[in-house]
């Protein structure tokens, strides 16, 4: 009889403990919702993409400057950063790197609060109003495309709009920022700041939906342009499926 009592109490205790542990574990999920949109909506009017013609790029970094001016960024935040890549022959060649706006963005799924999301037009954006600043996305991004506001960002002129994912100006201290493919410009039919600012006309904003790309001076048929020039995507092997295409040139080697 004593034995059955022990069994009963143990079972009771186990039940209570399981409930308590389960309750603690489940608590965060009560308010759970699918915070981040994980894929673009195919029915959207545009599906933005980007082309970098490395044959034309001379590494002048006007794109970086134009981008920083547009978004009032600190000098160390290079949302489009011109890397110097060493090729096999020992020479270095410039390679602008912006956010790849991956179809399968590694940064998006690691965010604990869903502050990184993909908008309907396929652009990866960060909501700096909800970002908790844990920087796991920076760890996950294989392209080093993300920057953190370690200090108070430089002052920006007063705008009518508050800082929002589509126009994060001014940047918010303690949150992550990155290239937004100038969605505030493309919405109104304007070019991204880097495309506008490139004197070599090496940068193209592209739309997968209308299969067109433009550097501001010429407009090309995107699919043909990519095929005929053997366009590649940076680190294809990672399975991130970037929306940024590179046209190799200068004979430089891209890291794979």
């Amino acid at each position, binding site marked *: 009889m004593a034995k059955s009592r022990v069994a009963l109490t143990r079972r009771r205790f186990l039940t209570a*403990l399981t409930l308590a542990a389960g309750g603690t574990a489940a608590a965060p*999920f009560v*308010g759970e919702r699918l915070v981040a949109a994980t894929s673009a909506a195919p029915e959207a009017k545009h599906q933005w993409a980007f082309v970098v013609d490395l044959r034309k790029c001379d590494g002048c970094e006007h794109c970086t400057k134009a981008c920083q001016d547009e978004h009032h960024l600190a000098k160390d*935040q290079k949302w489009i950063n011109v890397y110097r890549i060493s090729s096999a022959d020992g020479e270095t060649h410039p390679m602008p790197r912006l956010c790849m706006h991956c179809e399968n963005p590694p940064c998006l799924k690691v965010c*604990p609060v869903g502050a990184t999301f993909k908008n309907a037009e396929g652009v990866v954006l960060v909501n700096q109003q909800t970002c908790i600043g844990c920087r796991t996305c*920076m760890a*996950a991004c294989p392209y080093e495309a993300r920057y953190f506001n370690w200090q108070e960002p430089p002052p920006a002129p007063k705008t009518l709009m508050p800082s929002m994912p589509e126009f994060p100006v001014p940047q918010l201290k*303690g949150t*992550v920022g990155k290239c937004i493919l100038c969605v505030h410009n493309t919405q109104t039919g304007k070019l991204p700041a880097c495309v506008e600012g490139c004197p070599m006309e090496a940068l193209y904003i592209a739309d997968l939906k209308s299969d067109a790309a433009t550097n501001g001076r010429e407009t090309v048929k995107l699919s043909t342009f990519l095929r005929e020039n053997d366009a590649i995507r940076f680190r294809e092997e990672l399975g991130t499926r970037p929306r940024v295409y590179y046209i190799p040139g200068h004979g430089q080697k891209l890291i794979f």
Partner: protein
Amino acid sequence: MLKPEFPSSDAVTAAALRPLAPSGRRFWALAAALAAVVAAGGVAYVYQLFSGLGVAGYSDHGFWGIYEANLVAFIGVSYGGALVSAILRLTQARWRAPITRLSEAMAVFSLLAGMLFAVIHLGRPERIWRLVASPQISSPLVWDFVAVMTYLLATVIFLYLPLIPDIALLRDRFERAGGLRFKLYRALALNWADLPRQHQVLHASVSVIAVIIIPLAVIVHSVLSWAFAVTGRPGWDSTIFAPYFVVAALYSGVATVIIVVAAFRWAYRLHDYIGLKQLRYLGYLMLALDLLYLYFTFTELLTEGYVMNAEVVPVLESMLVGQYAPYFWLFILGGGIVPLLLVCLPKTRGVPGIVVAAILVVAGMWLKRLLIVVPTVAHPLIAGAWGSFQPTWVSMSITLGAAAAIPLLLMLFFKLFPVMAIYEMGEIAEEARQDALRLPVTAINQEGLPS
């Protein structure tokens, strides 16, 4: 032979309650010094809140560093405390009795210190409620959050349950004095009246929680490692990361138990109850984990170094022969080999040698955590210069503050609760006496255990 092994319950009670007596000047001087270090850390944190994480030494090519290493190190230490106690309970190791309370309390307080860094490392700590309000389940940080909170609950229960009979004893002692203290004990004692049924329930509960806490701690450390491993960065992209972290936690945790046990043994003159035996057995446990950790380190380096994947090579080189090599070899020597020798050699296997070994292990494992975080973060993924993480006075003050909080909380906790598990020690002494009656004297070896 049995007497020094299992002293009378009155003596145990007196010794375990020694810290509860009014403390001398030395106690309060140490407490004040530790509190000052904690306060300095608090001031540094307020400064960091206003100025941004940049003042802690972070940059875009050093986006994780000391706080992330601290998070892993402190929570790891906690695991050691919980596990030493749980394993020894489950295996019915009688020598555990005087050290379980210290281990369990250490597990709770170091966990709290570790959890603090989960907040401190955030750019926007005021938004942490979003982890509860709108978590994204695919994030390893959400897994961390759930695992650590569950583990916290378990460690608190694990500390509390065996405390109940001891609290009841205090309740009875303070009944005449009354006051707030008596009320606290009365509430926490949950009407413990030493009834057989209460004994049964307590035994069952403690066994269950001891069983649960082991896999739970494994889960916590695996999940912590995945916050790094799932990012796929060179140096972190490793399938052995989860068990590697678990062993690291155990190794540094057992070392911390040794330090805490030795410190309280010395400060409250508990030599009659906590003998060289306890410290030596813990030392052997640390030795086994030392070898295991070195083995894991070797395995990881061998496969990476043999394959020489172009992406991993720069990180590996920086660690073995490059800019981080001095720290890495310092760890291997100071955090691995020297402690090994100190515990192995009969000459140094005394209390001082074991404590020095444990201190080296804790310091070495902290350094190792920095070496796990920093080189991988500083290594350029595309091209260009290496980044770096240079700790500043802000991050160092906060780190020291959190580290000082652990001994401070332990000191204050044991002003209120017995430093040794009185009830359990009495029980074990009784068991041993019964065994002694049943067995011929020759069958009892020096440990007081049936051979």
